[in-house]
């Protein structure tokens, strides 16, 4: 089941000012898998996720130690092009956040940033991305209407389409279903399982059933540490660490 290593986290420490948020996080994520990050609020799972596309750069006082290698390149190295990095590492946020513009322009936003101008090419990218996000059939007749007018679940799939339009290799999802109803959640989960054909997916979730349903690997974070990282079926049936067992059986968190 293990393939090539796509993301390698080596002794990663993250500080917000004097506070140490992540302690010595070391593990590898394999390509074309879905990896779920679980753990109680404030355990550092989202913070680690945001290291992968350097969204922590915008937080004043944030500092990263250690190495994060994506395809063997250290993304915190001096010569890293953050723009190219983010093109390669897409992100979907907790709250659906389509731009207040048309569905088409939402999806075309990334490609346009990166220099795609031809209408024909953009049309192709928009259709492919919307199909990839399982939204095409619902919106193909109203591409010019506002993305804000869609339902919450549709908005989140639009955000997924927008994120995959730049053809990233990695897709980061930060609790993508926490603002959605169960029906919309089920559709996103189905989509996530589908997305790993083309992408490496890292998904933060509060919902352990969701982690069990969608992921191949699960990483359990607690108080800024990585407690356990294993194949999902193993972690949910026979975890090695007592703390993992306590968490997944609902004894705390």
């Amino acid at each position, binding site marked *: 089941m293990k393939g090539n290593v796509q993301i390698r986290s080596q002794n990663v420490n993250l500080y917000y000012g004097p506070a140490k948020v992540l302690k010595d996080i070391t593990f590898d994520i394999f390509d074309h898998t879905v990896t779920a990050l679980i753990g109680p609020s404030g355990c550092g799972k989202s913070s680690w996720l945001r290291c992968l596309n350097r969204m922590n750069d915008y937080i004043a006082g944030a500092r990263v130690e250690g190495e994060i290698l994506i395809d063997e390149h250290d993304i915190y190295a001096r010569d890293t092009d953050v723009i190219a990095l983010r*093109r390669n590492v897409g992100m979907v946020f907790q709250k659906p956040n389509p731009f207040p513009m048309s569905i088409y322009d939402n999806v075309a936003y990334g490609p346009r*940033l990166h220099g795609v101008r031809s209408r024909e090419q953009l049309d192709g990218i928009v259709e492919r991305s919307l199909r990839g996000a399982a939204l095409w059939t619902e919106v193909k007749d109203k591409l010019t209407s506002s993305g804000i007018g869609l339902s919450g679940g549709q908005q989140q799939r639009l955000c997924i389409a927008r994120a995959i339009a730049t053809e990233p290799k990695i897709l980061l999802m930060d609790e993508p279903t926490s603002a959605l109803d169960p029906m919309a959640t089920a559709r996103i989960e189905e989509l996530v399982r589908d997305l790993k054909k083309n992408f490496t997916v890292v998904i933060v979730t509060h919902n352990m059933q969701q982690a069990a349903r969608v992921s191949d690997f699960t990483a359990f974070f607690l108080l800024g540490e990585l407690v356990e990282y294993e194949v999902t079926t193993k972690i949910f049936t026979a975890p090695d660490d007592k703390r993992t067992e306590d968490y997944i059986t609902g004894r705390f968190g």
Partner: protein
Amino acid sequence: MNRRRAVNGFMTAILWASAAFLVLLLLAILIYVGVNGRQPLSWEFLTEPPRDSMTRGGISTPLVGTMQLVIVSMFFALPIGVVTGLYFAEYSRDGLFTKILRLAIRSLAGVPSVVFGLFGLSLFVVTLGFGSSLLSAGLTLGCLTLPLIVTASEQAFRAVPQDYRDASYALGATKWQTIVKVVLPAASSTVITGAILSIGRVAGETAPIIFTGAAFYAPDIAKSLFDEVMALPYHIMVLATAGVNIEATRPIQYATVLVLLALVLGVSSVGVVMRRRLRRSGR
């Protein structure tokens, strides 16, 4: 118990009466001006210049002049104000420089308008050599309204949700691309609303333009930026205090006041309606 209820009732009545007084005051002004100024009001009044030492004729020259002043002031104040608002909302850090800048803008908003007039006189009219002109008066009015536009646009930019910025950055946009493609479009209608509200202020001011470009009387509308202009507020003052025959111009004075009031209130209510629409559309 009874005493508490009585105090409560009394205070309610006072508050209600104060509010009612305010509404009545506005109504009284409008009705008084309306009744007195109704008679000369006609299409001709709006489209013809004053005649016979301003005792007859219309107000076309001051009406057009006021519009010209608004346009010149906005051309000057809108870009500078919006860019400054953008700086405050997106770039400034909480340092000494920002504090000084904020203090300066807040102070500017509190400066009496006649001081702006004198400032405009010394800077635009004399030092820069624009003379008493549409340009000088428009720029002076622009300075006056600058704090309003800065504040309004800063608030508009701050109201754009951080979510949009995050999404844009995560797609590989630079800060400037994010501002141009996401923040400005999302804030533009609110910025325009703020600008419209400040137009009302510009159109009604007298003191800043007296020394800088308002003409006592001009035979024609300003054809260039360096011509003097007539303006509605100053025209009213002239008619009421310095005319050849003040009594004879009384109806014209009220009609002019009526037009200016309608203009200012009209522009402001467009702004208010737009603002309410924006709020209702939930952004």
